[in-house]
């Protein structure tokens, strides 16, 4: 039963990968390419590029692609449910329980320790991400300006994304047009 297999594979991926989309990708590769052989490695690389290029969660985007490629509409339903359901149920259970425990002094103390660590876990990966985005002193203006506008200016991050896409497309269009004339 193909749909059940799709659902089961993604349920496994959704249950056993901690740390978000990028961690899930390596497990998806092992399950979908190496074990099941549903798609080959080249198509997998294309899929990653697409899943990152499209908006939304990378893990969900990849689930949609594989589901569609292997099983059409029903495949998509199977993979997306499989990818989302474990998180949904686990977080729901935690949210229900956490409400009644969060005011205990011991729990509060633990979270006082965790909060600065969480900020570090957001800030520290920036070094690696900046390196892989091939950042230079000149292009560093973009993230720095964006961060300041959101932080001090209270601008919505949506605007930063929107302006980035529109300006880049317009600029590329103008440059391409000029190149053709010459």
């Amino acid at each position, binding site marked *: 039963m193909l749909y059940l297999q799709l659902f089961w594979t993604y349920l496994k991926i959704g249950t*056993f990968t*901690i740390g*978000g*989309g990028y961690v899930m990708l390596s497990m998806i590769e092992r399950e979908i390419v190496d074990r099941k052989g549903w798609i080959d490695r080249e198509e997998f690389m*294309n899929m990653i*590029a*697409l*899943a*990152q290029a*499209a*908006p*939304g*969660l990378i893990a*969900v985007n990849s689930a*949609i692609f594989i589901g*569609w490629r292997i099983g059409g509409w029903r495949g998509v339903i199977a993979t997306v449910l499989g*990818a*989302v359901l*474990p*998180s949904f149920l686990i*977080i*729901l259970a935690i949210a229900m329980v956490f*409400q009644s425990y*969060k005011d205990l002094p011991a729990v*509060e*103390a*633990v*979270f*006082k*320790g965790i*909060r*600065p*660590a*969480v*900020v*570090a*876990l*957001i*800030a520290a990966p*920036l070094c*690696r991400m900046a390196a892989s985005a091939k*950042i230079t002193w000149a292009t560093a203006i*973009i*993230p*720095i300006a*964006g*961060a300041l506008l*959101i*932080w001090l200016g*209270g601008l919505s*991050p*949506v605007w*930063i*994304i929107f302006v*980035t*896409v529109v300006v*880049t497309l317009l600029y*590329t*269009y103008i440059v*391409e047009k000029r190149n053709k004339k010459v």
Partner: protein
Amino acid sequence: MIYLQLFLSFLKIGLFGFGGGLAIFSLIQHEVEQYGWMTQEEFVDILAISQVTPGPIGINCATYVGYTTTGNIWGSLLATTAIVIPSLVIMLSICKVYFVISSRFQRNIYFTRTMHMLRLSVLGLIGAAALLLMKPVGQPSVSFIDGSSWIIFAVTCLLTIAPMFIKKSANPLKSALNILSHPILLIIMAGVAGYFIYS
């Protein structure tokens, strides 16, 4: 109407969320702040919990925010569905034309330029998320309450980036650091430290 707010906000987050969980976190942060859905403490705690539980961080956040703002399962279901809808629409459209464009899109200059610039702006989004947690404008930080907070922050930062500085992958120190720099372990260690410092 909280349900409509939730739905529209997470629809927007799904539509403009590029670059993975941490970048999406910045979008969620903005919505939460704008509508005053929860306290800053609650919000940081959600991120901590999202990082130590399985699954995509965006789904974890959506489910949690949906539950805490409405107090029931329907809020969770609504927020989680809303964040997935834009993906469904856009990815399915891409999949339908995928066999026409195959891998050519990766050499298209419009595509490569936009992706490159988006990766840069996403860095700004993540930086802003960290700065807003460190020092929110016009109010005290809940994440940094005393000197110990800064020590925990510095140690976590150091352990996270340490593996970057060891080039040789066969180095046993590198494998040790790789294990130590795992977010789950770091959060657990910070929790233990918090327990001994603050209780």
